């Protein structure tokens, strides 16, 4: 995975997990500090930039992590496990709120800070891409977020999503074609 992810294979991290398992609150807080940004950012992307839902999802993920500490193998690929929990929690939330109207693009994105906030062209492009992501089916959005935004390989994304590599490859391909189509010809109604 790109970005030099913190992994349970790291000796230091394995020590933290061991201490947290033994009930060390400081060690658990340290794990929380290592992963909270990535979990919240992923939840924001999967939940169409709804910050309140993303915060709820991130809380659930870390509370679930705390409950599962006893069963957690410190030598296992911890990041994959945490992303799988994040994806599952977000999927459950999307299903639970399916009857609710989605946030408008103006309301969405609170809590998310763009890297190039002062560039209007890039901001417009960014807005279009987020709108395109919001139109994707949930599985395709998850696949493209994991592969293209979080930087996992196809096999890692497949493991996180609990399906085959062939399926994930097909979902990624469909998503990229749809995003390209959306960006080239955005809908005429205001986004």
């Amino acid at each position, binding site marked *: 995975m790109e970005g030099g992810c913190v992994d349970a294979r790291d000796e230091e991290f394995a020590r933290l997990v061991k201490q947290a398992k033994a009930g060390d609150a400081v060690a658990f807080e340290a794990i929380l500090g290592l992963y909270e940004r990535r979990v919240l950012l992923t939840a924001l992307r999967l939940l169409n930039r709804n910050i309140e839902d993303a915060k709820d999802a991130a*809380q659930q993920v*870390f509370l679930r992590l705390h409950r599962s500490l006893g069963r957690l193998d410190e030598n296992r690929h911890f990041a994959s496990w945490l992303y799988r929990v994040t994806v599952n929690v977000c999927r459950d939330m999307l299903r639970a709120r399916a009857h609710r109207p989605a946030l408008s693009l103006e309301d969405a994105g609170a809590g998310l*800070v763009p*890297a190039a906030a002062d560039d209007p062209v890039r901001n417009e492009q960014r807005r279009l*891409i987020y709108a395109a992501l919001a139109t994707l089916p949930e599985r395709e959005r998850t696949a493209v977020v994991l592969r*293209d*935004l979080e930087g996992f390989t196809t096999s890692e994304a497949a493991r996180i999503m609990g399906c085959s590599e062939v399926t994930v*490859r097909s979902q990624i391909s469909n998503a990229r*074609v749809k995003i*390209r189509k959306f960006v080239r010809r955005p809908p005429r109604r205001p986004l």
Partner: protein
Amino acid sequence: MRCSKFESLIALYVEIDLAESDERLVEAHLETCQGCREFAADIRESQMALKELRMDFVEEAALQEVRAEVLFHLSTPRRMAPWPKYAIAAMLLAGLWAGWLWRARTAVPLEVQPRAAVIAPPDLAPAPAARQLVRTVRRRHRQPGPAFKSEPLVVKIVTDDPQVVIYWLVGQNGG
């Protein structure tokens, strides 16, 4: 293969997500197809825009809120939800009821064997010998019997309570 079939392969090809054999197939097609070359360029452009989102970051306030909520939940002692208590009570009651039913079913019922009752019809005309016996008995009653003059028997019953002692006077005549 038609160009529409190549679109899904090109979408993977631009990010090197294809197997080598498929890569060669796509490259060979791109050399000959202008439309697919344009499609590949478009996909590359939209992928670049997509990857720009990697640079976004979340506000510190949102992170702190999540952290505070998580730590608050972990610091508050978890109380047992009320429903398990009710469930346990219901299970106990159901168990007791089932036990009672089982015992009621397996207990040996008291069966009263029907017996044929033979009731002799009353004698309408008593036999002469019986009459004679009755007479004899009457005669005996008229004679006074020997009188017993003895002390009554005293039975002392001691109970667990030393304060309570029961005395039972039994007459020799059976009283």
